[in-house]
């Protein structure tokens, strides 16, 4: 080694990092030793299998992403379901209003409910009147129709005082119809109401 090399050696020998910086970096190492991150010292450097690798991974960000995706999925599903429910309700309300306005002749005539019930053999339930239909109404007759693809009894009544006709639709609670919430709407001058009572699905329609 010549004189110049010796000078280079001495130069680098005498170089040193500032004390503050050294202390700072030593503290970093010390802190790391005291509180090891799960990805560092919890797993030994050798013999690390995929299981331990997986368990040592930081799942926080993944979990957040998964939860976000699940939330988006749930919201879109809810929007889709509520959208289809609204569509179904509107369709049923229209069907009720249309059945009322077409004024088709009743297939079975009679002033007693028992008579009409006996006549309508195909109904999978016993025909009953809801609480809202009191003695102010008189039965005219009934016919088969369908609501939401379900066999329904269309009972025609009229108000004894005013003579105003009223259509009552009675059907069983099918899977489709149970999705429709009880509601009241006015469609093309017809007041339509939908509700459930005694395990049956009811709808009424009359001109306002």
């Amino acid at each position, binding site marked *: *080694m010549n004189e*110049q*090399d010796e*000078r*280079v*050696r*001495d*130069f*680098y*020998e*005498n*170089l*040193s*990092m*500032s004390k503050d*910086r*050294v202390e*700072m*970096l*030593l503290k*970093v*190492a*010390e802190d*790391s*030793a005291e509180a*090891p*991150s799960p*990805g*560092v*010292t919890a797993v030994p*450097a050798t013999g690390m299998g995929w299981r331990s690798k997986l368990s040592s991974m930081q799942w926080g960000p993944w979990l957040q992403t998964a939860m976000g995706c699940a939330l988006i999925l749930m919201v879109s599903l809810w929007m889709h379901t509520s959208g289809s429910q609204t569509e179904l309700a509107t369709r049923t309300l229209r069907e009720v209003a249309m059945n009322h306005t077409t004024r088709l002749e009743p297939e079975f005539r009679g002033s007693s409910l028992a008579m009409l019930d006996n006549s309508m053999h195909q109904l999978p339930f016993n025909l009953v009147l809801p609480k809202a239909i009191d003695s102010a109404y008189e039965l005219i007759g009934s016919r088969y129709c369908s609501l939401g693809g379900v066999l329904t009894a269309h009972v025609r009544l009229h108000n004894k005082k005013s003579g105003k006709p009223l259509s009552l639709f009675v059907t069983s609670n099918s899977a489709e119809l149970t999705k429709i919430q009880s509601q009241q709407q006015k469609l093309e001058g017809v007041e339509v109401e939908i509700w459930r009572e005694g395990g049956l699905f009811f709808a009424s329609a009359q001109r306002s």
Partner: protein
Amino acid sequence: MSERETSLEALLQAAYRYAHALCGHAEMAEDLVHESWLKVVDKHGPSPDRALLFRVIRNLFIDGVRHRTRFPSDSFEEHSITDATAFDPSHYASHDLVLAQGLSELRSVEREALFLWVFEGHTAAEIATLTNQSRGTVLSQIHRAKAKLKKSLDQHQEQSLTVVKHTEKKSS
């Protein structure tokens, strides 16, 4: 200071010398070691391996150089600052300032090769492996570094002699 702390400090000082050999600038070398240390400790635990730390320092330095080359707009300012302070005598208060000046004028690859050869005592083949170059390239880098340094030191000596002669003339 515990034995562990002493060995870590020695490692930090060694890393600093290597970083200095790469960038030729005291503050930049500290920053380079700082960044590398955080990376290595975070990934590999509180007792970093010397070879690994040196490799990270080298890679970060190369990344920095590449970044400055790729984005000259932001490197312009940085480069001029670096140039202006590349040799700041205040950083080498108790050092061989003439040599520090000479070293700062070398290319980083030459300075690195010279450091690894003279200070770390590596062979040309070892340096070639470490720096991913051929042995011949390393040897020529060392040779060039030594020649440049000699020239710089000789020039300085000549200037000093001229100044001394001039002063002697004036005084006589």
